[in-house]
Every structure is written in structure tokens, then in C-alpha cells.
């Protein structure tokens, strides 16, 4: 073999703590290395040209680049060597930036380690074989998980591009958190007025199939050919018959049911349509309150339903669909703020969450747009807002900023004044974070035009005194303790990943961070992609985001899915398992362990042998590690390649 080695300086990123030129010089002593050099920015155009030139000048048939992580630039360099006529798998990378120069300052040790990493790359490359991808067809259908504004945008964009969409929503209606909001910042326009039409579009679009009250049961397959099982939870209402007339809810005798849509502000009936603009507009029975289920008898709704849509015996239904790509837009939930016992931990009725306050203000909410206290129905005059409840708080494991609370608190303060002109609002804040078009101006308006008193400091205690609450905090600008008497306290509760996000991530085989938010493929350059091909992210599932960002991300995810499925055939990764039929004894161990059922038993001249189904194999190599005689080998990560790497590192 004729191998060329290129050691990158990456400016000073590597060059400052690794002697790149020295490593290149040493690399010349390695077996089969006929050319070695260092270069300033190997990934730049001149850097890549240097590789291409060296390949032709030195007749190289293999290339090692020692630079950043292969997770960063392996595809870049593979394309470069391919342009020079070398198979893209005759290329190896040594990660001397993330794994060397950035984690230590000892130049001698770093240079030595960098050389070692080059050595194992060379040893592996010497055993590489050219590989060629295969092509396979894909299903031109996208699954959107979550029907909040991000998911809605992704679904509509895909559908408008002519791709079929299946939307799965856990709640009885799409709309997500945005549907619960009264108004939106910074324009203070009505949330349901701008979201409503989009929800209707979803319902009416011929390319979109919506499954509400449904969750993802399992996922199998791979990019282009996922097989998804959806669990449609029993709502006890036959959606094909329900017209959404609402008669059932009118007559339902169980009127004290928990109102999920209204965040527990007020109550609802056991059978209900969550809100007037719900999509789909179908009734749903909450079994934990329905007398038919709790007491075993009632049946009022079944009696009054004009179309006979009620079916108490309805069971969950499993539905299997084929899709080519998936968009995870599962949104967020509020942090459990009840851990703050200094704020009453839920004991005080007039200490509410920001989302509850939205419902209290909303004209379509339980109070018809007239703000009143949950305890006694009185109109509050002094309203205290506390920001960062469950955000930026290391002590409860939520160190991050939830991003949009500063803005909605300002909005809620403004709306409070609009609703109750003789009211006074106070906002306890840590910092005002309002980077966005028209955002900072908005928070100033809350202070200057609406007279909201902003107090920079934390609140240490809320306690009831008479029928009011004493909010004790610190004003860090004045350097004094302050106490405000409040009729109502609104907590700007921080956000966390939607319940069960890690569980869903595991089904999707994507990564999640320690807070449950889904991990993007690259923080800056691949914010929509995940490490699993064909799975894209939108909205707060990836981290806290406001509405404009969620919508933008929904469109971005749609663009990624459309781009993926615009190709007639998808390229398969040739780094898959292969069976050496001469060595295979047909013991079937590989068949047992393969997570993809990508290996089958075949009859070869009367003997049982294993065979890899190429389009199904994902290249994990479990079979390889299982086969005792090594008859199954994972291309590009064969036993011999890994053994060569091990041996390069040992004393032998």
C-alpha cells in the first residue's frame, strides 16, 4: 500500500499543543507510509487540494488525516479522497484535536499521543478494503410526533411539498402549549387567532392523517424505511360517528373532572371536548372521573348521543405505518415547581403557574376573560410575578434558562393592567433576557407604559396573612429586603423536556441530554438532525424555545425530511456485516442476537449458513462479536482491523 499522512494544525487549535510537523516527520517511519506532511487547515480548500495533489503525485491508495473528530470532518475528507479517485473507505482519521490538543497542554505528551493515534490509524488503514454503497428505495411518508406549533408547521410544510404526513398527538387535541396561551408576545396578538387556522389546515389537508390521543408504541427499521407502531388510546368515543356537537358534555353528570386543558383552573365534565377550537373536535372520556367507570353505572352520554358514538368497551388500538423520516416535536412540560416549599409547594390557592394564569386571562378560559382569584373569586389588585421558578437553579437540577419566561411575564403584566386597570404588578427577576426582534422594547413598555414594578432579586418566602399573601424577597439593586402584599402570585415556572422524553428517545434511538432534551447531531452545524439518520428535531423537544423559533425549526425539520425523501433511492452505508460462507458453521448465534433481524439462515449446498440482508443491516457489529470463529465480519471494523489497532498500542 501507499499511504499519505496529513497532520493538521487547525490554526493554533492543534498547533499550539501538538508538534504537528514533528508528528508528520515521525509518521514517515510507519509501514506503507510513503508521504507525510503537516498543513495549516486541512479541511480548507487549499488543504483538501493538497491531499488531492499528493494522491496523484505519490500514487497514494490510502490517506490518513490527523485533525479534528471524525464525527466532524470524516465526510469532508472522504469526499476529497474520492475526488482524487481513491475509494472513500480507504481513508482514516486520527482525532488529535478533541482527543488530544484540546484536553491537555503538555506538548511532549500530546505530540507523542498524536503520533500514536496516527499509528493506529495507519495500522487500521492498511487493512481497509474499498467499499461501495448500495441503493435502496424509501417510503415517501413522514411521521410527525407531537402536534404543537412546531409539529404543525413541520407537517404542513411536508404536506404542501406533496409528502404524506402522519401526525401523532398524545392529547385529545393538537395545538400544544400555544393553544393554551391567551396572547403572544411581543405583538400581543391573540394566540388562538393565529394558531387556529393552522390547526384547521392540519385537519383538512388531504396529505395529513392525524391521530390524536395516540402515542408511539415502537419503532423498527431504518432511514427511509421505518416501521412505526402507533397506540391509539381508547377514548370511548367512536371518532367516525362523533360530530363534536357537545351534547354529551352538556348532560354529563360528572362535572368535577380535572380540566387538563385549563391546567386545573376550574373543572370540566368527564366526557368533554377540551376547548372550542379543538382539532379533532371529538369528545373524549376521562375514565378516572367518568361514573360509568368509577361507579360502574351511568351511561348518560351514551343515551343522549345523537349518533351513538359512545362505546365504553373501546380498547386501545395498535396501528402499524411505514414512514421514511420522522420529526420529533414533543415540546415541553413545566418543571414540578412544588419542590419549592418556600412558595407554598402547592398549599396556597392563589399562587399559580404562568400557564394557569394564561387560562385565567383567556376569553375562552373558565373565567371568560375576567381574572379572579381561585380562592375566593375576588379580582386581584396586587399581582406579583416571580421569574426563574425552576430555571437557572442548580439546587433542583435545572441550571438552564428557560428562555421565554422573561417575555411572557412582561406580557402577562401588560395584560393584567389591561384587564384590571387599577391593578399593580410586581416582577421579581434575576436578569431580563429579551434578545429578539422587538423583545427588549416590549419589556420596557411593561415597565414604562404599564407601570409594572420590576424588582431585581429572588423571593425567599411566600406566606399567607389574612386573605392576602406576603411575598418576601430581596431588592438587590437597593440592597434591601422587600415585602409585597399580593392578592395573586404568578410563578414563571421553567420548562423541562416533555414527560417521558427519554423513553421516546430510546424508541427513536436518538440521544438525550441529562434533562431529557433530545440531542442534535451538532450543536451549531446540525441543529435539526439527530445521530440517527432520518430522525429530525423541532421545537422544545431539543431545548427551550419561543414560538417563532419553534415554527422556524418546524419548517427546518420539514425541509430536512423533504430533502431526504426527494431522492428516488437512498444510499446505504456499506459498513455492514458480511458472512464468510466458508467459515460459517451455521450455529445461528448471530441470527439470535441481531437487533434488526438482518441475518437469516440459508441452505448452502445442504448446509445451514448465515446470510446478511444488506439493506437491513445497520452495521452495529454485534454479530461479529458473537461469532466464535469470526465468520461474520463487520466491514471497516473487522476483527483484524481492531486487532491491528490494539497491537499497535501494546508492547508487542
Amino acid at each position: 500500500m501507499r499511504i499519505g499522512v496529513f497532520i493538521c494544525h487547525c490554526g493554533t487549535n492543534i498547533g499550539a499543543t501538538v508538534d504537528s510537523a514533528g508528528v508528520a516527520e515521525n509518521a514517515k517511519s510507519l509501514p506503507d507510509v510513503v508521504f507525510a506532511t503537516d498543513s495549516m487547515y486541512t479541511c480548507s480548500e487549499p488543504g483538501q487540494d493538497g491531499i488531492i495533489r499528493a494522491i496523484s503525485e505519490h500514487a497514494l491508495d490510502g490517506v490518513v488525516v490527523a485533525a479534528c473528530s471524525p464525527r466532524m470532518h470524516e465526510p469532508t475528507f472522504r469526499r476529497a479522497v474520492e475526488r482524487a479517485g481513491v475509494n472513500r473507505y480507504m481513508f482514516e482519521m486520527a482525532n488529535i484535536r478533541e482527543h488530544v490538543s484540546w484536553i491537555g497542554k503538555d506538548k511532549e505528551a500530546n505530540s507523542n499521543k498524536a503520533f500514536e493515534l496516527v499509528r493506529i490509524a495507519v495500522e487500521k488503514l492498511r487493512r481497509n478494503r474499498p467499499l461501495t454503497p448500495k441503493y435502496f428505495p424509501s417510503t415517501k411518508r413522514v411521521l410527525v410526533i407531537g402536534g404543537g406549533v412546531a409539529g404543525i408547521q413541520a407537517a404542513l410544510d411536508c404536506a404542501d411539498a406533496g409528502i404524506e404526513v402522519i401526525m401523532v398527538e398524545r392529547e385529545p387535541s393538537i395545538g400544544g402549549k400555544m393553544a393554551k396561551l391567551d396572547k403572544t408576545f411581543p405583538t400581543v396578538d391573540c394566540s388562538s387567532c393565529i394558531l387556529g387556522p393552522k390547526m384547521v389546515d392540519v385537519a383538512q389537508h388531504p396529505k395529513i392523517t392525524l391521530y390524536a390521543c395516540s402515542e408511539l408504541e415502537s419503532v423498527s427499521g431504518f432511514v427511509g424505511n421505518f416501521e412505526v407502531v402507533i397506540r391509539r388510546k381508547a377514548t370511548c368515543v367512536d371518532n367516525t360517528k362523533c360530530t363534536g356537537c357537545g351534547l354529551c358534555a352538556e348532560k354529563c353528570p360528572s362535572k368535577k373532572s380535572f380540566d387538563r386543558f385549563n391546567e386545573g383552573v376550574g373543572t370540566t365534565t368527564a366526557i368533554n371536548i377540551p376547548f372550542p377550537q379543538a382539532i379533532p373536535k371529538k369528545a373524549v372520556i376521562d375514565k378516572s372521573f367518568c361514573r360509568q367507570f368509577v361507579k360502574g353505572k351511568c351511561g348518560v352520554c351514551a343515551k343522549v348521543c345523537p349518533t351513538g358514538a359512545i362505546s365504553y368497551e373501546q380498547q386501545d388500538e395498535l396501528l402499524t405505518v411505514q414512514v421514511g423520516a420522522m420529526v420529533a416535536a414533543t415540546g415541553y412540560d413545566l418543571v414540578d415547581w412544588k419542590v419549592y416549599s418556600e412558595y407554598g409547594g402547592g398549599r396556597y390557592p392563589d399562587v399559580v403557574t404562568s400557564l394557569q394564569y394564561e387560562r385565567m386571562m383567556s376569553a375562552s378560559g373558565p373565567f371568560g376573560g375576567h381574572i379572579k382569584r381561585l380562592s375566593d373569586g375576588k379580582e386581584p389588585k396586587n399581582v406579583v410575578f416571580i421569574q426563574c421558578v425552576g430555571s437557572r437553579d442548580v439546587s433542583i437540577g435545572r441550571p438552564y434558562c428557560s428562555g421565554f419566561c422573561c417575555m411572557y411575564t412582561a406580557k402577562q403584566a401588560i395584560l393584567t393592567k389591561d384587564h384590571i386597570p387599577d391593578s399593580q404588578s410586581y416582577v421579581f427577576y434575576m436578569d431580563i433576557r429579551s434578545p429578539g426582534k422587538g423583545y427588549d422594547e416590549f419589556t420596557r413598555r411593561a415597565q414604562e407604559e404599564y407601570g409594572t414594578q420590576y424588582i431585581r432579586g429572588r423571593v425567599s418566602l411566600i406566606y399567607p396573612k389574612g386573605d392576602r399573601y406576603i411575598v418576601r424577597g430581596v431588592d438587590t439593586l437597593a440592597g434591601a429586603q422587600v415585602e409585597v402584599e399580593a392578592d395573586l402570585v404568578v410563578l414563571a415556572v421553567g420548562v423541562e423536556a416533555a414527560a417521558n422524553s427519554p423513553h421516546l428517545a430510546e424508541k427513536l434511538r436518538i440521544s438525550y441530554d441529562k434533562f431529557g432534551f433530545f440531542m442534535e447531531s451538532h450543536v451549531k452545524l446540525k441543529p435539526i438532525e439527530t445521530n440517527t439518520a432520518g430522525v429530525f428535531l423541532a421545537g422544545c423537544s431539543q431545548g427551550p424555545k419561543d414560538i417563532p423559533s419553534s415554527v422556524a425549526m418546524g419548517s427546518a425539520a420539514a425541509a430536512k425530511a423533504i430533502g431526504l425523501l426527494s431522492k428516488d433511492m437512498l444510499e446505504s452505508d456499506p459498513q455492514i456485516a458480511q458472512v464468510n460462507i466458508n467459515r460459517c458453521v451455521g450455529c445461528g448465534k448471530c441470527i439470535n442476537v441481531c437487533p434488526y433481524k438482518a441475518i437469516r439462515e440459508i441452505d448452502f449446498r445442504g448446509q445451514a449458513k448465515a446470510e446478511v440482508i444488506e439493506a437491513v443491516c445497520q452495521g452495529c457489529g454485534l454479530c461479529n462479536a458473537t461469532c466464535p470463529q469470526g465468520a461474520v465480519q463487520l466491514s471497516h471494523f473487522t476483527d483484524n482491523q481492531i486487532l491491528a489497532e490494539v497491537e499497535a498500542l501494546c508492547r508487542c
Partner: protein
Amino acid sequence: MDDELKGAIRKVLPDVDCVIGWGPGPDPLRSAPFFMRKPEEVDAFVVGPLAVNNPAVFLPEYKGKKVGIVVKGCDSRSVVQQIAEGLVKREEVVIIGFPCSGVVDIQKIAAQLGQDIEPGMVTSLSISSDKLTVNVKDTAKTMDMADVRADKCASCQYPNAVVSDEFVGTPKEGKTDDYADLAAFEEKSIDERFAFWEQEMSRCIRCYACRNACPLCVCRDHCVATSREPHWLNQADSTREKLFFQLIHATHLAGRCTGCGECSRACPVGIPVGLFKRTMTRAAARLFDYQAGTNAETVPPLQTFATEEPTIKEREW
């Protein structure tokens, strides 16, 4: 019991290609694998303390043909494991079991005699229930059976065939296995163990008798010990490579070894290679509550998993 067993074998013979058991060996002390096809061949069948080797090792070669096999308890576990792993089909094997009282260890007999026993040296031999008398060059030496019984028999949990189509005799009570042999070995310090194996493995002649005697070594002609693709071992006469082969064998048998002890017995230079597999067997029992060769319906522990592994105490960082 011998005659009853012979009767059982003869009864099975018409339905099978052959019945595998034990027959006369090079001298009265040693039996040999015995393949019986005709009823008259059954007369030479040997059973008892001299039926030492494990006939299950031959079974996978007969895949596709129906065969009978006479098994001690330990041998039967190999058969069960072969069936569990699909190496042998249950319907292709007729299992004849009997209660085993233990087998002899030729090395121990040699030790009692104070000399190596070359084939042919033993001219005659007689066995009573607890005594064994060996005639070497017209000198008779009587020894206690207990002193020459194979080590594995001392902790034999399954003296009777685990699974059988015909069972001859009254089942015997099993013993418990407390892995005393491992505990004794583990008296040594880590360094002493390394030194021990360095010494022992330096004597290995790479004959692979240990592998060839193993009824669960499925690779047969494709052993990684002698292949270049993949190239796990080089052919140098190095202690490291020899030890590495033992660890390959033990790893391949992890959670599968039924403890028949044939690897150790087959070793011509007497290296206790069975200890490696015993360690894995103990670990499989402790971690996965799994005993290979006791139930053909179970999946070997390393070919399956549980999402929660309460017995695996992972390191906290």
C-alpha cells in the same frame, strides 16, 4: 446394570444410525469411544468408573442423522446444551441415561502407582464397589476408589442424565457444587496466579486436544486459533499466545460450558485448563442464575439480555 444398559442399546439400535458409548480401549484401564451399529457389537460395551470420556463430543457431526447415545449425567448436560443451541436436534438423538457413581482419574491412579502409565502397561484390572485393583507387570496394587475418582465427580450435581429417552437404574442423589476448587486456587495472590499460568502455559504444546475434546466447541475446522482472517493468534511458540488461546476458549464457552472437564482431562501435559471455564461457569451462575445444560429451553446468558440487570453491580464513577 451393564446388561440392562446393553439391552436398552440393542432396543434402540434399529431406529438409529449408531449408538455412541464406551468400548474397549488400548488396555484394561482405558475405555475408548465406541460406535455400535450391530447388536453383536453391543457385547463389548463398557460402563462404570472407566467410562471416562464424553461421547457428546461426537454428536454434532451426526447432525441430519439419527443416533443413540449413552450418557453419564455430565455428558447429558452437554447434549442438552447442544440441543439448546441448535447444534443437535432433539428428535435426532435417542438418549440412554444411567445413574453414574463417578469415573476414575487416570492421573490419580498413576500417582498411586508412583509411575506413569503407558498404554498397555496395565495387564488386568478388577473393580469392586469401593476398591480398584490394578495389575502392572504382574504386581497388583489395590486402591480406594475415593482416592482415584475424578475431581469433578466430587461436586457432581447431576449424576443422572438430565434428559433421557431410556433410563436404566435407580437415580442417584446429586451433590452440591461450592466451587471449592476455584476457592483453593484463589488463595493465590494476583501475582502468584500470573506466575502460575506463565509456568503452566509454557508447557503447552498447542496440540488443541482441550479444544477437540470439548463437546461445545462449535467452530471445529474454523477455529480462530489457526486462521488468518481473522488473525487472533500468531503461530509463535509464545506463552502469551498459548494463554490467550485458553482465554479465547473460555470466553467462547462463557455461560455455555457444562463442566464435563474433558478439556483438562485431554491435556497431555496436565495443565488445569478447566479452571478458566469453571470461573465463567461460576460467574454465569452468580450473575445470571444460569447453569448450562440443565434445560434445553433456555437461551445461553450471553446470547440474550435483560434491560435491568440487578445482579450486575456496575461501578459508580
